[in-house]
Each structure stands twice: as structure tokens, then as C-alpha cells.
């Protein structure tokens, strides 16, 4: 929750503006306040105020029975992320827990009723499909029940068997097509100017849970005026990161121990940077000055900026030069380039480089459609559940693009495994494989000696539940037919 939102939320609850601002400046959010005590607040505001604020804040949830921020702030924060809206509910007292599944429609309700009548079960996806297909078809109740029974019969027979080694099947299903994938990077779908990692390298990147993908890309949708090309251009210019060296020539003056900055009008115009803006940006470090600059043989006087090194050190001068080059004039960190593309009626901005948090803060960005291919960023901004969905989407898209069909259930299992304990874990020795409970399984995978030696010190006990361990000791594994026992009791022979 941003500072402004916090202030506003507190004001709504009748907290004085000054107090609210003081609290917000101290880094408090509503959630933190709720779980705080007067003693802590005392440091920032008078004690009397603190008690009052707390009363007001904690009283608030009572008005909204749906939300329980005090109990599960962490959960509540994670919830909105997976939803289609994806908007952190800012102005409300507490983030509302959004309903993830759409409401049950009339047709669906009819089928649910039918299911109840025949005492069967169908997953929601199937109910929705059936409802859509049955829509507009007039049939009697009896026929409907027959359809429902038949569908659930078929569904039952298509269920996965207990003790199925779902993990191995999924791993094989994703790994096997790997040999058929290409290794090269290609142009991003429809955007010829951008390269994007696809195929096997991308898939490896996804299961490795790299912090930054090798080609981060964002797709930014605009809430209003997405058909207005000029507006989109302005936005694109605004978010594109512009460093000083992009719009100015930077030189060192060794005689006076200075760094000279000569803004280039053409480039500034192309990047949409006004001179005043530039001056504002550089005010802290550089002083504006009329400078003489020799171009070829003639010298002319131009507007420029001077940065003093302060001391006669070439090293420092060089450092200032580098610093000036990478001074950000405008735009968002990490967004190296923004390209506008037409998608149907609307325009969409594609960016090279990614910064989801900052982009979502833009008032005109449509958070429900804006996305990035950086899974780690989605995790940081929107939470695990969103990261889980992002892994599924990215992996599925990668495979699909290569023309390989892999059932989405396999990808879901991998994704669920990676996100099982609340953060994104890699598939490999630093992630899931390194955290297995079995010593033998870890030793058999990688860094054998380390695991064995460490196991001895901590006195680990391997209870031989997994596959690798049982293979090692030569026992049947505990999957499939190895998980069950059959006992045959011969018929009693009568004497």
C-alpha cells in the first residue's frame, strides 16, 4: 500500500491528517497498524493520539465483516493477485478477498441441481462447458439427467488412478519434447523489433526459477484511450528509460577538472525530454552554464551543464563521467525500450525490460491485462499464486509456440511443486531436489559427498519412502503396484 493510500485510508477512519501523514511516513500501512501497539506508535506520534488511532483502525473491520485483515494479513495480501483484476485493493479498509471463480450461472445451476439429484460430482470446468453446450437446447428433465449421468460416468472413468506416479509422468511429458525443441531466440510474436528467448533455453529458464529472464518483456495495456495513438506514444515515451547519455554528449574537461554535458536538441525531442525537465533533474549535481564548444573548426556557444570534480583526481573525474552517463532523466527503471503495436482496435505497448511494480503504479495502466514474462517479478508484486499461474502460462506458451502439445495438467504439477511452500523454488539442487527429506535421494542426485557427510553429523534417518531410496536399497518402490499389497486367502477346505 502506497503512502498516499495509507493516508487516505486513515483519514477515512477519522484520523487527523497530520497524524495520518506522520504514521505513513514512518512506514506504517493499515495492516501494520492493526497488528501494532501504542508503545510502538509512541515513537512517531503523541501517545494519546496513538491509542485513539489504534481504536479507530481496529474498529474499522467491524463494519466490513467480509474481510479479516487482523487475522491473516499475509494471506489477504496474496489473494487478490491471482484474480483476474489483480489490483491491490488500495483504498479500502482491508483488501477484499476477491471471488476467484465466476458466479454460478443459471444454466450451471440447473446442472448442479441435476447432479445433486443423481448424486454425482463433476468439476466446475466441466459443468461450465456442459452448460454452454446445453444452452438453447430444449430437452426434457429426464434427458438432462441422462446427459448428466452419462457425463459423470465418463468423467469417473477418466479419473486418474490412486497411486499413479503422477510426478514421473509429468516430468517425462515435459522433458521428452525438450529434445525436439529449438535453441535459438526468435522475434516476439508480432513484434519484429524485439528478440525473445524461446524454445529449450526459455523452458530451462522457467524451471530454473531465474531471478531475471534473459529477455524480460512486458505487455502494457492502457485503461482508457487505448485507441488514441498519440496518447499511447506519450505514455511509451514516458516509461521508456532515458539516461543522460541518450540525450546528451558528455565530455571531460581535463584542464578544469570538469565534466561537460551538452544536451542534443534532436535526441531530446525524440525522447520527449524538455530542457526544463533536464535542468530539474540535473540541478543537484550539475550547474547550467553557457559553454563554448568546438565543432570541427568553429567554436560556438551552447547551453550545457558543468559538473566539478572538486579535487584534481582523474579517477574521480572518470567516475563522475560514468555516473553522469547513467543518470536517469525519465522513465522507469529497467524499461529499456517501449514499442507500440496495434492489437485489434487497441494499441498495446511492448517493452524490452520489465518493471511490473512501477508500471502497475501508473494511473493509466490497466492492471488486469498488463503482464510481464518475469516470474520472479510477478511473485514479488502479486504473490505466489500469481507466480504459479505465471509459470503455467509461460511454460505452456513456450511449448505451444514450438508446436508441441503437452497436457496442461503436467505443467500445473510442475508449477505447483515449484510454488508449494510459498515462494518460487527452482527445479534442481538449489531448489526442490536439495530440500528432499531423504539423504540417499539427495546424494544420488548431486553433490553426493556433502550430503552424506552432513547426514552423519545431524544423525539423519532415511525412512526410505521415496523412489530413489528404494531403488538404491533394492526394494519395490512405493508407487503404483508397489504401493499396494494383495493378500490371497485360499478357500477353506472342509475336512
Amino acid at each position, binding site marked *: 500500500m502506497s503512502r498516499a493510500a495509507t493516508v487516505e485510508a486513515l483519514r477515512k477512519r477519522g484520523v487527523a491528517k497530520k497524524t495520518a501523514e506522520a504514521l505513513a511516513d514512518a512506514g506504517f500501512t493499515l495492516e501494520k497498524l492493526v497488528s501494532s501497539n501504542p508503545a510502538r506508535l509512541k515513537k512517531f506520534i503523541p501517545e494519546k493520539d496513538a491509542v485513539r488511532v489504534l481504536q479507530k483502525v481496529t474498529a474499522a473491520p467491524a463494519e466490513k465483516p467480509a474481510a479479516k485483515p487482523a487475522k491473516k494479513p499475509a494471506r489477504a495480501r496474496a489473494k487478490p493477485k491471482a484474480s483476474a483484476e489483480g489490483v491491490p485493493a488500495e483504498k479500502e479498509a482491508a483488501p477484499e478477498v476477491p471471488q476467484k471463480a465466476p458466479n454460478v450461472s443459471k444454466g450451471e445451476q440447473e446442472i448442479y441441481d441435476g447432479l445433486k439429484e443423481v448424486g454425482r460430482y463433476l*468439476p466446475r*470446468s*466441466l459443468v461450465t*462447458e456442459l452448460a454452454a*453446450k446445453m444452452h438453447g*437446447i*430444449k*430437452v426434457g428433465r429426464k*434427458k438432462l439427467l441422462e*446427459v448428466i449421468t*452419462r457425463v459423470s460416468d*465418463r*468423467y469417473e*472413468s*477418466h*479419473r*486418474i488412478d*490412486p497411486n*499413479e506416479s*503422477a*510426478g514421473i509422468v509429468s*516430468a*517425462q*511429458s515435459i*522433458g*521428452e519434447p*525438450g*529434445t525436439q525443441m*529449438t535453441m535459438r531466440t*526468435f522475434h516476439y510474436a508480432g513484434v519484429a523489433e*524485439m528478440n525473445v528467448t524461446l524454445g529449450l533455453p526459455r523452458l*530451462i529458464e522457467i*524451471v530454473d526459477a531465474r531471478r531475471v529472464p534473459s529477455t524480460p518483456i512486458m505487455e502494457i495495456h492502457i485503461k482508457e484511450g487505448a485507441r488514441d495513438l498519440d496518447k499511447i506514444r506519450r505514455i511509451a515515451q514516458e516509461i521508456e528509460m532515458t539516461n543522460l547519455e541518450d540525450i546528451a554528449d558528455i565530455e571531460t574537461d581535463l584542464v578544469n577538472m570538469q565534466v561537460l554535458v551538452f544536451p542534443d536538441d534532436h535526441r531530446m525531442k525524440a525522447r520527449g525530454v524538455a530542457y526544463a525537465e533536464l535542468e530539474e533533474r540535473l540541478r543537484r549535481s550539475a550547474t547550467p552554464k553557457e559553454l563554448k564548444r568546438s565543432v570541427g573548426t568553429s567554436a560556438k556557444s551552447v547551453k550545457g551543464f558543468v559538473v566539478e570534480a572538486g579535487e584534481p583526481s582523474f579517477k574521480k573525474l572518470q567516475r563522475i563521467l560514468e555516473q553522469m552517463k547513467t543518470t536517469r532523466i525519465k522513465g522507469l527503471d529497467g524499461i529499456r525500450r517501449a514499442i507500440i503495436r496495434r492489437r485489434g482496435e487497441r494499441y498495446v505497448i511492448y517493452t524490452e525490460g520489465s518493471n511490473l511494480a512501477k508500471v502497475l503504479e501508473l494511473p493509466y495502466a490497466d492492471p488486469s491485462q498488463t503482464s510481464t514474462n518475469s516470474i520472479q517479478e510477478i511473485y514479488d508484486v502479486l504473490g505466489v499464486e500469481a507466480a504459479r499461474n505465471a509459470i503455467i502460462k509461460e511454460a505452456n506458451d513456450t511449448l505451444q509456440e*514450438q*508446436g508441441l*502439445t*503437452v*497436457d496442461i495438467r503436467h505443467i500445473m504439477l510442475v508449477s505447483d*511443486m515449484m510454488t508449494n511452500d510459498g515462494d518460487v523454488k527452482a527445479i534442481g539442487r538449489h531448489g526442490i531436489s536439495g*530440500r*528432499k*527429506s531423504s*539423504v540417499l535421494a539427495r546424494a544420488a542426485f548431486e553433490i*553426493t*559427498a*556433502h550430503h552424506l557427510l552432513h547426514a*552423519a*553429523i*545431524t*544423525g539423519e*534417518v*532415511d525412512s*526410505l519412502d*521415496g523412489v*530413489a*531410496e528404494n*531403488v*538404491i536399497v533394492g*526394494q519395490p518402490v512405493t508407487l*503404483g503396484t508397489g504401493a499396494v499389497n494383495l493378500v490371497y486367502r485360499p478357500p477353506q477346505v472342509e475336512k
Partner: protein
Amino acid sequence: MMSGLRGVTKRIKAIKFALLSPDEIRRMSATKIITADTYDDDGFPIDMGLMDSHLGVIEPGLRCKTCGGKVDDCPGHFGHIDLAMPVIHVGHVKELKKLLQATCRRCGRLLLTKQQAEEFRVEMEAMEETGGGDADFQVVTKETAREATKRQRCPHCGEEQQKITLDKPTTFRENGHKLTPKEVRERLERIPNEDLRVLGFNPDVARPEWMILTALLVPPVTVRPSITLESGDRSEDDLTHKLVDVLRINQRLRENRDAGAPQLIVEDLWELLQYHVTTYFDNQTSGIPPARHRSGRPLKTLVQRLKGKEGRFRSNLSGKRVNFSARTVISPDPVLSINEVGVPVEAARELTVPIHVQSYNHDIVKEWVKRGPTPAAPVGEFYIPGVNYVIRSDGRRIRVTDKNAEAVSETVEIGYVVERQLVDGDIVLFNRQPSLHRMSMMAHEVRVMPHKTFRFNLAVCPPYNADFDGDEMNLHVLQSEEARAEARVLMRVQEHILSPRFGGPVIGGIHDHITGAFLLTYKDAKFSKEETAYILSKIGIRDLPPPGVKKGGLEYWTGKQVFSMILPKDLSLTFKSSIAPKGEHSLRELREEDALVVIKNGEVSSGTIDENAVGAFKGKILDKIARDYGPDAAREFIDKATKLAIGAIMVRGFTTGIDDEDIPEEAKKQIADVLKKAVADVEALVEAYKRGELEQMPGRSLEETLEVDAMKTLGRARDTAGQIAGKHLGMENSAVIMARSGARGSMLNLSQMAGSIGQQAVRGERLSRGYWNRTLPHFRKGDLGAEAKGFVRSSYKSGLHPTEYFFHAMGGREGLVDTAVRTSRSGYMQRRLINALEDLKVKEDGTVRNTADTIIQFRFGEDGVDPSRSVQGKPVDVDDILQEILGEEPSWQERLKEQDMASYGLTEKDMAPEISDEEVEVEEEEPTTEE
């Protein structure tokens, strides 16, 4: 062996890991080792030497002095070496450093106040309760140690702490002053048990001072057997060599110390001992040179034995060598069922199945034994199985020979096991590496055959990814009734027709099967009485159905009619053929091409049967039959469909050659013109670029813009050339039939043969490297034109110019490199995936859990559907059920009509465009060379 393991119900419950204390080492030791010599002059092991016969036996005939067992009975016994001075165990130096830093140098207590220690203890307990893994504990203990290390003064005794550093690999220093292992050990002894627990130690099984070795365990000789060379010389194992070094130095150290030698000498020897013990454990310790063999090869010591792909774990424990297996070259046999495998007689005579002699089979088994190992087949038969071994009730094996067969057969009693050679119908496992998915190992039924290769039906090539250019495959004979039953039920080929990867068929027609099916059913193909009889004889049909067409007094049978004979009688299905032109087309257009397959009640009323009907991966009919009629029906269908197709192709005959790419002179000229123009266009672009008039693409440099434009122009030119060529290649052309029906090749391949090969690319760009500013010396420096940067104007048929040829090779080389890199990278990815997911299973309640019983998914794939049973990913084929139940309902009929669908069976799903576009694209990447 058989009887010994039968009905084993015992299971190893758990394996506990612990450190060995010096006491324990001495207690479990069979003998103390003191001399560095191994054998005496007569070749017998020296007592208290490294090969002492108390440590087990490796030579047949000798007996172990500890247990009295012979070679195979004695598992070997440990010995020990008493070290003159203690040394540090390299594997534990990091832990030792942590301990020394975190505890007081005087009183040995943890450098934390009681309260702090308590906090960490509580945290760990909480973690235990919530089921934290080993990794989580490590985090806490690390934090504890870091916290303790920060403290300068002991909170318990007030002693000022010194800075402890580790000089890799095994030297500890306190303020730069060296700590001897002895001193380290003394300090560790002082650490109380409760403090160790907080640091992640379990003092019950691992006291820290045990990490400083005072006694060294000597592994049994069975672990380090010496080999006798032909010359009679002995060659010792690397471990033995290392132990010899340890013993020698140990001896010298002891002598010097006892003789009161100068401190300097003792210390040097002590360090040398440390070096040898260190390299004995791990010969790749960083910071010290690896110990080498006389030949200069680094020794393979304990850690090296365990780790890596060739280490104990991965090559002996996770994967094991097996008996009763065979490997040979494979070749095709279209007559075999997909469930079968042809096994050469030579292999069948070696591979055996154990048969338990019971009262019901006593007589017949005796009869088998009497035949001996190489029975002559009676007239009319070609092979009958013999018996190789008879195993008596006490486990003794008797080799059956032609000579003793008669005698042995008389001794066979109930309770014996007889190893019978393979016969037709035995179930075996068949495998081709790399085993990337479960279909890489399937169960087949044996058919013993002459000649020396394994043979199987061509429809089974796709799941194994096999071809017959020299591929070899493995075969394993199952040895227990339980295994055979499981293999038959779960692993048989017919059970794997539908892939769990995408829920479609992986077994099905390929190459000629598709061509044959096409020839059989395209448009109104019809066959005379003789031809029809011949084709139908392939699937064992004797009686001809009534003829479909009568013309000129002759009777003809249509191909569609013939094909319909193998379809289930109630099958209704509609879909697009593979020959259907790309893109959206009306049903009428499709009908004209005979590309809309309509099957009603088991009759093909229109459409061509090709890859989309019976092909592996894509076959719609196959998919439907496998799902709705079961594996038996599917197996029968594949067997018959492939045989029919082969019958048809044999009747019609089929050939392709270079003349299939013949196009008229005029077309050639047209193509030449197109290409010439394209080259000129590129030239114009280059000129524009040089003049600086090229319009820059947003976000691209001028050079990049030129490249993109040039690529586009030349790509288009190739496509146009292909289209012109394609116009003259009609459906009567064999190559076109193969490409369109999906049997082999693509239209792109054809246009490259007849039209133009097109632009060659490396890393997705036009060729640019080679000489300075040019690709080859045949061009001017800085030439950016089409020809200079890898455009191949010629076609494969016309042949390539020398420069073109070279460019083509450059493009081809990239493909080869790419393939090589890809296999290793994807192999490692798959290994990691398998390792991460191997323990997951679906429980009875439908949740997916790991071995720690953590729920990974509440329902597999959110709907609990098995992908191999799903309908192209969907849980249930709703359309099908609706059609079945509501077929006659007026409102349903209306719906079908509305959607411009045929009157039956045709549903949206069937009309969905194919994914084939991408696959053609992929095809292009592949180099044309086939291994």
C-alpha cells in the same frame, strides 16, 4: 535365488546415518593393520597387513579368518589403523570451523547467553513441530553459529575469544598461530551436548571430536580387490595404495615421535600424514595437489568412487546391471502385431524363463528337460524351446547339456525350478535408449524367428523414436509371475497407444502406411476382384463383400469400402484429412478435394484416409477407437489398417525419384525471373541503404533494417518460387502425395528441390562471417547483396554453385551443433525434473502428495483427470455424449445445422484447424541429413 526371495515380506524400514567414534571403529575392526606390506613372497596375505585374511577373501578357495566364509559368502570385514597423531577429517572442516568459532576457547560453551541459546532452541523445536526440512534446519543452525561467532567474550567464563581462521584445506589458525589437530580435538571435547544440539549436531550419534581421527577405518578387501594380471603380477586398488602411504607415514611418525625427534621433523611428518589421510578421503580437495599413481594418473579415492555419473550412486545404486537381457540391431516386420517382437533363435536359446515344477506340470517339464538345451525342431516347426539350467530345491544350479539332459530330467522333482528357453507368447520388456518417457520401455510378446535381429511392427517406431539405420534395442525377460502379470496388464504396447503427454495416439501408421491408406481411399479409387482379394487376404478376410461399383461388366470394390471393413460397426466421425488445403475452407471445397472424412456407422462415405486418420500423433480414427473401444480393438485396428495400407500400396505400386520434381521449362523460367527480381530488389535496398535513404524501422538500426528487409524479400521469393513449382506438381505426383498425405516430407522440401533453396541463415541472420567484411573471397568487401550473404538461388535438383554449396554447409553445420547442444541440455533438464517430481503420487483421496505427505495438489490437474484418458486435454467429450443422447432431438439437430455441420458426428472440435503449420516450420530447422 528364486526360492530364497519368494514371498519376502521384510522391508528395510530406515537407514540411520552417524559418525563413527574411535571406540566404535576399534570395536568393529576385525584386525589392526600395522604393516604396509600386502603379500608375502608366496603370494599369501601378510597378517596385520592391508590384505589380511581377517578382512575377507577375494581369491576363490581361501576362507575368511573372521567368519569362515568363502568368496561369495563372506561380505568382508573392516580393519583399522591406529594413527600416531590425530588428523582432521577433510569432509568436516567447515563444520569444525563453525564449532571452533562458536564456542569458547577455554570452557567450550557456546558463545551465547542462556537466553539467546534458549531462543534458538525454541525456534528449532517449533520447526520440528511444523515439519521443517533439513534445509530449514540448516538455516537456523547457521544463524545460531553466526550469532555466536560475533561475541568477543565468553558469557560463561569471561574468557576473551581469539579469531579462528581456516587455512584450506585442513589447517586451523588462531590469530595466525597454528592449532594442531590435537588442540582442536581437546577443544571440541569440551563442548557440552546441549550446546551442540543448537548448532545442528546430534551428539548421540556424532560427537564433534570424532571428526578428528585417531583411528582410521580400513575397508574390507572386497571393497578394494587386487587384480592379478596375466603376467602373474598383482595390481593393487587405488585405495590400497593410499592406505599403504598412510601406514608408512604413520609408522615413521610414530618412530620419530617415540625417539624424541626434533619438533620440526615430527610436525612435518604429521602434516604429511594429514595429507595422505585427506587425499584418502577426497583426492580432489582444492588447495592440495592430488595424489598420483606411478603412471601420473590421479588416484580414485573414496569421494571419487561415490560421486558423479560414473560414481557408486548413479551407476551402481540408482541403476543396476541385470541378467536375462539381450541387445541387437532392430529391423522392421510389418506382419507382426504391434504387441509382438521378433526374437532371433540365438537370443531365445540364451534367455530363459524360470518355471516352478509343480504337480500339474511335473511331467511336461521333465519332457522339456529331456530335450536338452538345443532341441531339434520337429518337422513343420522351426523352433522348440529347450532348458538351460535346472535349479534344485537347495539352490544348486545344474547346467543342462545335450549329454546329461536325459539323466537330469529324471532327477527333476516338485519344488525344482527349470529355466526354460523363450517360446512364442512369452512376455518380455523391450526398450530403446534414450528412455525419455514410459513408452520407451514396453512389454511385447515373443515370436521366435530366424535371422539375427529384433523385429517389430513399424507402427511402434514413434514411441521408441526408432528407425532402422542401425539402431539397437534391448530386451529383458521377466523372471517372476508377478512381474509378468504386471507387464501384461500395464506395459503391453496396446496399453500405450494413447500418450499421457497429450492424450492422443503415439502408435500408428507412418510413412508407407499413410501413403498406402491414401492410395486406397483417395477419391474414387477402386480395385478389381483380384486386387481386392489380395488386399483383403492381408487381413485374413476370405469372403468378398458385394462389389461397390460395376462398370463395363466388371466388378470393382472401392477403397473406402475396403477400409470400412475394419472399422467398428457403430463408429461415426467427421474430420478434415491431412490433404485438406491450409486455412479456412467451406465444407464444399473440402468435399471437392475429398478432404472431409465422414464416417457413419462404420462406413467411410467420403474423405481420404491419411495421416489425420491413422497416423501416429494425429490419427483421429485411431484416437477414437483407442478411447471408446479399448486397447484390444485399437491394437486390432492398427494391425489391420497398416496391413491394408501395405496391401494397397503393393497393388498400386509407389515410387518417387528425381523426376518427381520435374517442372516445365516455362515454370523454370518464371522461377528464375522471380529470383532474379528478388536479388535485384535486395540490390536496390542496399543502394538505398548506402545512399541513406532507407527508412529506418523504429527501434532498429539502419543495418538491422536492411537485414530484416532483405531477409523478408528473399524469403518471399523462395515461397513464390515454391508456389510456382507447386502449381506444376499435382496430386498424381508421388512426392506430392507423400507431402500432402503426411507420409513423409513437406511441400517446403519439394519447393526446395524444384524451385529454390532460399536464404541460408546462421543464428537467424544472413551469413556474414568468414573473411574480413565478406563471407568468401569470391565477393567484394562490404558486398551486402543477396548472393554475397548466403542466398542460394539454385534448387537441390539443379545443383548448387560452389559458393552456394559452401553457404548451405554453413547453415547445415549450425543445425548439427544445435542438435548436439540440445540433447545434453534437455537431458539434464529432464533429469532434474524427474528428480524433483519422482516421489509425487496420487493418493486414494485424489490429492497429489510427496513422501513427506505434503499436499502438492488437492486434485491432480485441478479436475483429477488422467491426461492419457482425457480427450485432447478435455476431461470428457461432451459433444459426443450429447450427440449420442440428443441425436434425434429437434433442437440439437437445429444446432448442428446452424453451425454448418454435416448431419452427423461432426462437431466443432473436429473442425478446429490443425497445428500442423508450426510443425512444418520445425521441419525446416532440421537438417536434411538423417544421422
